[in-house]
Structures are given as C-alpha cells and as structure tokens.
C-alpha cells in the first residue's frame, strides 16, 4: 500500500515542489505530505477499529453498552449512518451516468466506489452488533419472514450491493450501456432498501417516537443530503490533497452545482425535521411528546439544537446562500458540517426512540407504576445508555477504514486520472 501511495505522490511532484518552495525550511510540507500522514493515521485508527470489532465479534453483547431496555445503540446508529451515505451516493451520482447530466458524469465511478465502500463498512459495523452475523446470512435464505422489515431491509441491501458492484465493474470497463442498466437497478434497490430501513424503526408500534410512515420517506431525503455532501467532500478534498490547481479550477462548476443540490436537500431535510418536531409536540401523543420535549428542552437539548439544527442547517445554509456559497472551500465546509451533524442525528434518533421506558415510573394515565426487582425505575423517566469503549473504537475505526479504503481504491483503480 505504501509503495502505491509513494508512486502517486511522485506523480504530482511538480505541484508539491512548487508549493513547498514557498514554505521556507520545511520540505515535508504541502498537501501531499499531509495527505500521506493522514492516511497513516487513518490506517492506525482502522486497525484499532478492527481490533475493537474482533472483541465485539468474540464477546457479543457483553462488549457493548446496550441493555435489555435499550437494546439498540451506537453501532445501529453507525450502520444507519453508513448505509444512508451509500444510498445517497448512489442516488445523487445517478444524475450523471444514469440520467445523463453531463456535469456530474465524471463523478460516477468514484461515487459508486464510495457507495460500495460505505455499504460494506456499514455491514461490518452491523456484524459487530449482531450476536450471530453469519447465521443471519443463512437464516435470511432458509427461514425468511416476509412480515419482518429487517428481513426486507437485509435482503434488499444484499441485492443493492450486487447491483452497485456490477455497476462499478461495468463503469471500470467503460461499458456504459450495461453500467446504466445496473445503475437503474441500483436506484430501485437503493430506494426500496433504504425505505425499508426506515420501516425497521417506523413499523415499531410500541415505540411512538418512531412509529408511522414518516421515517421511510425521511430516510430517503436524508440520504440525498448525505450523498450531495459526500460528493462535495470527495471532489474538493481530492483536489486539495493532490494540489492540482488546474483540476481544481476545472472542478469549480461541479462543486458549485453540488453545493446547490446540497442547499436544496438541506431545505428538504429541515422541512422534515420541523414537521417531526411540530407533530411531536402538537399531538400530545404519549411516548412521542416526552421524547420531543427531551430534544427541545431536556437531556438531548444540546445535541439537538447545536448539532441537529445549528451545525446541520443554520451554518451550512448561511454559507451556501451567501456570497461564500460560490467558493469551493466554503462549500466543502458547508458539506462537512452536515455530515458531522447527521452522525449525531442518527445517534439521537436511535437513542430517542428507546429512551422512554416501556416500564415507566409514571404511566400513561398518570398512574405511578413501581416494578419489582430488577427494574429500578428512573426518576427522570429516561433510560440511560453509554456506549462502551469497544463501540466507540468500532465507530472511529469504521470511519477511518471507509476513507482509507476509498482512497486506496481510487488510486489502485486510477479513477482520478482516468476521469480527469
């Protein structure tokens, strides 16, 4: 791997030299050198993630912070984060190579590669969360339950993986007719798989915060947001790290167009978020209103207002709609912040749906319920959940691994040179 990186590094030597000459006394400076160091750090983090994953695979739920009352935790949120990203990349990039918008065409191969990488990393995270991941693969085929949203979600994501795998294969062979066909199948699988992921939560009648037709639709909207944001970051960061000014100038219209899409999707998701909150409060629905209030003014106050509102919408939209919204660097900032916020959003979403105990201290009709041991009850009415170190390690490692796999993939397959 190191030799591969060195070769690429030498290829852009002229630009690096030009840049470093201005930095007196530090020949190692420059985006390429920084990039190499970043990759090493990512490699170390990914290795730590694999180690944490190995612990989770061996120990099962004993290594996780989840409980019988709060069975889904950080790893589920991370899985959702990754597969949302994958779906979004597939959908947004299809504008180019499936729907024929010329401007987006150069993105196709890299976008589908990243979609595949994020999907596989998502599966890996999920396998650490499950008690018996291999058994699931067998049972999905041998003992299927078509009434189960998880069965549909798993099966459709399996199909989706095959389709985008084929799409990547044909794109690499420049067989654009077959790539387009695989791309269309990929879109259909992506939308159906992803809405079924929403259904995994949305069909849980016992969890009022999740229940309803909202989530399958909302998940598609937030996937589009992630897709546009990630593509901005891919184009901008590649140009920055390779320090190729000519390409950077050429890519400016592409980044600007992606920025406009990003602004649109931000508005769409903001719209969804606003109505989720309004419906949560206005309905007064037991189980829904408590959790919504926890976000507005309770224990989730900071993560909701600061991450889910301020960083996710206020700052990016201010940048994108203002004068800075035409500058690639600022567009990249406006793309990076929502990605960070979306991760927090996923975590809040998973935790919020479960945080109100079904064995409450104060019941639905104001009756006081005291449960015998071992249920101790919780004065605030909200269940605690703290991710374990293993869970955090897996998440950090998974994000590092996704970036690393993508960078190594683009270089091994020489995607950038080809498309530029």
């Amino acid at each position: 791997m190191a030799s591969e990186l060195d070769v690429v590094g030498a290829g852009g030597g002229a630009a690096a030299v030009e840049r470093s000459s201005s930095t007196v006394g530090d020949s190692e400076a420059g985006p390429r050198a920084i990039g190499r160091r970043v990759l090493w750090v990512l490699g170390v983090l990914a290795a730590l993630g694999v180690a944490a994953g190995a612990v989770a695979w061996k120990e099962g739920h004993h290594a996780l912070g989840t409980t019988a009352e709060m069975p889904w935790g950080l790893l589920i949120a991370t899985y959702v984060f990754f597969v949302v990203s994958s779906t979004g990349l597939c959908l947004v990039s299809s504008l180019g190579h499936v729907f024929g918008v010329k401007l987006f065409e150069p993105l196709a191969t890299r976008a589908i590669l990243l979609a595949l990488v994020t999907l596989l990393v998502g599966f890996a995270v999920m396998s650490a969360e499950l008690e018996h991941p291999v058994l699931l693969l067998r049972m999905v085929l041998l003992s299927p339950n078509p009434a189960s949203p998880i069965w549909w979600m798993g099966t459709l994501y399996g199909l989706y993986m095959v389709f985008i795998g084929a799409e990547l294969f044909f794109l690499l062979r420049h067989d654009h007719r077959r790539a387009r066909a695989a791309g269309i199948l990929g879109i259909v699988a992506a939308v159906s798989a992803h809405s079924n992921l929403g259904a995994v939560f949305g069909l849980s009648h016992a969890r009022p915060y999740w229940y309803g037709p909202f989530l399958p639709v909302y998940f598609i909207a937030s996937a589009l947001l992630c897709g546009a944001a990630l593509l901005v970051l891919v184009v901008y960061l590649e140009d920055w790290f390779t320090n190729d000014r000519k390409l950077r100038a050429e890519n400016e219209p592409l980044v600007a167009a992606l920025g406009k899409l990003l602004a649109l999707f931000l508005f769409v998701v903001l719209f969804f978020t606003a109505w989720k909150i309004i419906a949560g409060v206005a309905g007064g629905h037991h189980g829904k209103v408590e959790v919504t209030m926890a976000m507005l003014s309770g224990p989730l106050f900071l993560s909701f207002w600061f991450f889910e509102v301020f960083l996710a919408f206020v700052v990016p939209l201010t940048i994108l709609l203002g004068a800075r919204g035409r500058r690639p660097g600022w567009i990249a900032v406006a793309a990076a912040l929502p990605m960070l916020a979306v991760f927090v959003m996923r975590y809040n979403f998973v935790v919020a749906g479960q945080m109100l105990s079904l064995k409450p201290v104060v019941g639905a009709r104001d009756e006081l319920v005291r449960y015998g041991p071992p249920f101790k009850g919780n004065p605030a009415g909200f269940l605690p959940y703290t991710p374990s170190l293993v869970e955090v390690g897996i998440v950090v490692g998974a994000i590092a691994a996704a970036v690393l796999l993508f960078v190594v993939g683009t270089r091994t397959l020489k995607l950038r040179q080809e498309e530029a």
Partner: protein
Amino acid sequence: MARYAMTVDQRQCVTCNACVIACKNENAVPPGAVRCWTAQVEQGRYPYLAVETRSERCNHCENAPCVASCPTRASHYEDGGFVEVAPEKCVGCKACIIACPYEARYLHPDGYVDKCSFCVHRVREGKDPACAAVCPTGALAFGDLDDPRSAVHRQLQTRRFKVLREEEDTRPKVFFLT
C-alpha cells in the same frame, strides 16, 4: 387446538415475588434478567387511591409484534398459542425486544433472545407453569381459554378483567382480574 392463557388475580396477588424466583430456578434465568416480574400500580389522587398489585410476564399475544418483526422466524407461534423463541435461529438482532410493548424480552448471555415460555416444557407434561404452581395465594391460573372446564375460562366468564396496553392491538393472553 388449545389456546393456553393465564389469569392474574390482582385481588390475590401480594407481589411476594415467589413467581419470579420459581421462574428463575425453573428456567435457569441468568443473573440480572427475569422472565417474570411484579408491579405495583398506584392509581387515582390522594386521598382516593387504589393500588393494583400483579405479576407480569410475556403475554403470548395472538397478534405478537415480536413474531412479525423477527427476520429469521426464530420468534414463532407454537401449537397451543405459545409464543416461543428458537435459540438456534436467533441472530441477536433484537428487533423483537424493540417490538415488544411489554419489555418482556432480554438478550441471554449465550447470545439469543429469551423470555417467558409459559413453561411450555411443563405444560406439555400436563403441569402448570412454575410461577402458577408456586403462587402462595393462588393468584395465577393457567389453562385452555377454549375449554369451558378450565379455571381461566370460568374466571373470564365471571370476573371483570383487563389486558395490558390494549391499544397496541396485540391480543394478549395474560388477563388481569380486577
């Protein structure tokens, strides 16, 4: 086909937790987890208060959300209306724990989801579930809903009763006599 059900007489239950202990012994339930538990519910406003006392467990619902949500059919209905988990099919995705409105399920240390089985192994031998067998006040009765001679059938004909979280439309088969 029998439809096995349980009645919990809230007028007789004193939440002594004998059912909890008997269940843990009978089914080797691991530390920190229970298949059966007790609850005290205070209702009304001072000074007009009432306390309900009861023993709770999996309701072996006829429309069980856990069975619907299980991707591998590990959670399933068995003859007699039992809702059971097949450990060898359970992958530990915990969708059933999320789906159950009664929080009756937990993840067993051995890596599968576990819950009250209505002591199906005892019932098949003609015995009552361990909790019903041990109850010192006779608050728990077990039997076939469709058998006019069974205690549960008679009680549901003559007593007022309720089920938990009726709004979930799960059609529970544990009935609470009020």
